[in-house]
């Protein structure tokens, strides 16, 4: 009586298919299948959420047009699985979602066969790793080129020359106020340079006591001092073949500056207590929030070291001079925090944005990030309102900020000098004549504004 009729089989397979569909729709992992040509045949709800494409937009299109992963054009995992029959598990890639955002995902692939065992296509499941990536970034403080968020023409100018700067071996000096992203830029240079496979070593010169700085930078040999029981490599040794970042270089004591100068000039150094000279195959990037020209004038920074460091000079403008970046940065921080905290906050109300646009941000991007984090703690709605922002930002007496008049005059003078030098192709005599000033005055002003032609 229990005989299986074709009708029963059809019903059973129909039920099975609908059960499978329910399962596919309820899981948090994105799933899509492709046929042998590579066209999408199934696309579940989670796949829609992660990629931003609706199912009807995705089905029938080539998977590379929808998924747009970094590996699609070099070594497609799904194609490899279909060709070899071997699954790939937990491969980390980044895809481009419909809005043009890069989304890190972990993918797993398998081959699809029909009842006769013939390969009919492949299936890929993928998991959004944005949160994991955000936590990793937070924990390791390792930011990449993709983290530089800016529309400002002054920052864009820097980013435009960044690949050329990175390609060279020249020493780079990055200046800018605290919290403007100097370290981010330094890391981006390393990432783009031929040394990217090598180590990236950061030394915060301000955080290491003067007495320890030499041994930290150059290391020491056994017996160099009472507690030196074994050799210890310095940061220059650890950075061999890579890049060393001398953060807050303006804080390096005068005595140490001479030793640093020698490494930059001769590319060699000796560990503390050692007699052997070591070669430094290291690219040096230095950052500072201090006005090094002023320190040079005051005799607190060696002029020769200053010029050695300033082969290529990049200056990051403070946030108050690139206000167009505030909405973009605020949106980025809201997105990251929503991911990390799981709070359903979508953005800022126009009033809250107005408060941010008025604030001078002496602490720059870091201060903006803190303000958004503060708001996240207080906000129980979908939009951040002014009352969620730190109280000092909401004071009514705060007026739109303008740079001081003296600053404006200096800026105008600097631009005039730049324009004249550009027109005269760097010829100082002609530029001085054009400006109606003597060569000496031009020289003095160029020096004040740091306008010497960098390599």
């Amino acid at each position, binding site marked *: 009586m229990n005989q299986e009729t074709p009708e029963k089989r059809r019903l059973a397979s129909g039920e099975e298919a609908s059960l499978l569909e329910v399962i596919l729709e309820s899981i948090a992992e994105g799933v899509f299948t492709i046929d042998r040509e590579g066209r999408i045949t199934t696309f579940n709800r989670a796949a829609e959420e992660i990629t931003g494409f609706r199912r009807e*937009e995705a*089905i029938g299109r080539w998977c*590379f047009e929808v998924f747009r992963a970094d590996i699609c*054009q070099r070594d497609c995992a799904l194609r490899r699985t279909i060709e070899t029959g071997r699954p790939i598990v937990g491969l980390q890639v980044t895809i481009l979602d419909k809005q*043009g955002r890069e989304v890190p995902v972990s993918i797993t692939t398998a081959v699809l066969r029909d009842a006769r065992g013939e390969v009919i296509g492949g299936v890929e499941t993928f998991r959004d790793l944005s949160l994991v990536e955000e936590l990793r970034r937070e924990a390791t403080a390792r930011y990449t080129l993709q983290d530089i968020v800016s529309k400002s023409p002054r920052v864009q100018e820097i980013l435009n020359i960044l690949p050329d700067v990175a*390609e060279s071996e020249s020493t780079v000096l990055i200046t800018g106020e605290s919290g403007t992203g100097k370290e981010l830029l330094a890391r981006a240079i390393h990432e783009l340079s031929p040394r990217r496979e090598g180590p990236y070593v950061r030394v915060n010169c301000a955080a290491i006591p003067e007495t320890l700085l030499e041994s930290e930078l150059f290391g020491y040999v056994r017996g160099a001092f009472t507690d030196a029981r074994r050799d210890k490599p310095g940061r220059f040794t650890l950075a061999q073949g890579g890049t060393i970042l001398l953060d807050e270089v303006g804080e390096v004591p005068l005595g140490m500056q001479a030793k640093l100068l020698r490494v930059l000039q001769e590319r060699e150094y000796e560990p503390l207590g050692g007699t052997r000279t070591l070669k430094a195959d290291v690219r040096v990037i230095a950052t500072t929030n201090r006005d090094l020209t002023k320190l040079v004038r005051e005799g607190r920074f060696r002029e020769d070291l200053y010029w050695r460091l300033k082969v290529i000079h990049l200056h990051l403008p403070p946030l108050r001079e690139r206000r167009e970046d505030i909405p973009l940065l605020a949106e980025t921080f809201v997105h990251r925090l929503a991911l990390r905290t799981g709070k359903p906050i979508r953005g800022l109300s126009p009033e809250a944005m107005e408060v941010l646009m008025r604030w001078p941000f002496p602490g720059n991007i870091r201060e903006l990030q803190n303000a958004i984090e503060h708001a996240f703690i207080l906000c129980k709605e979908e939009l951040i309102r002014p009352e969620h922002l730190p109280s000092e930002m909401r004071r009514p007496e705060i007026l739109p900020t303008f740079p001081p008049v003296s600053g404006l005059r200096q800026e105008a003078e600097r631009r005039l000098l730049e324009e004249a030098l550009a027109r005269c192709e760097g010829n100082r005599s002609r530029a001085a004549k054009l400006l109606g000033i003597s060569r000496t005055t031009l020289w003095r002003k160029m020096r004040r504004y740091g306008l010497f032609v960098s390599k």
Partner: protein
Amino acid sequence: VAIPLFGPFVSPRFGYAPQILLVEIEGGNVVGRWILNTAGMHPWQQMAQLRSLGVDTVICGGISGQMLHQLQSQGIVVINEVGGEAKDALRRLMRGTLRAGIRCRGRRCWRGPFWARRKR
């Protein structure tokens, strides 16, 4: 004009194509074609190279927001979300009918999803 390639197709993602087709157009005619080998090149290095070659239009299937800003800040026009074969996209560009979000296959081009093509 620069078109990152994925075989004969417009590359689905700028910065990751192993080759870029460079086309010089003068007075509505193609006067030169070159292939730029970009395998192993960082996306930012590719952008720098295109800038130094004097490219003023990029056609691609997708591009990250950051790279889009960057190219636009250099005065480069980016026609994004273009699908199909590179030669068809180029043909439409020269006719002045190439728009973002357009997909071409042979002589047939359509905007939007796959099913939109079948409705026409």
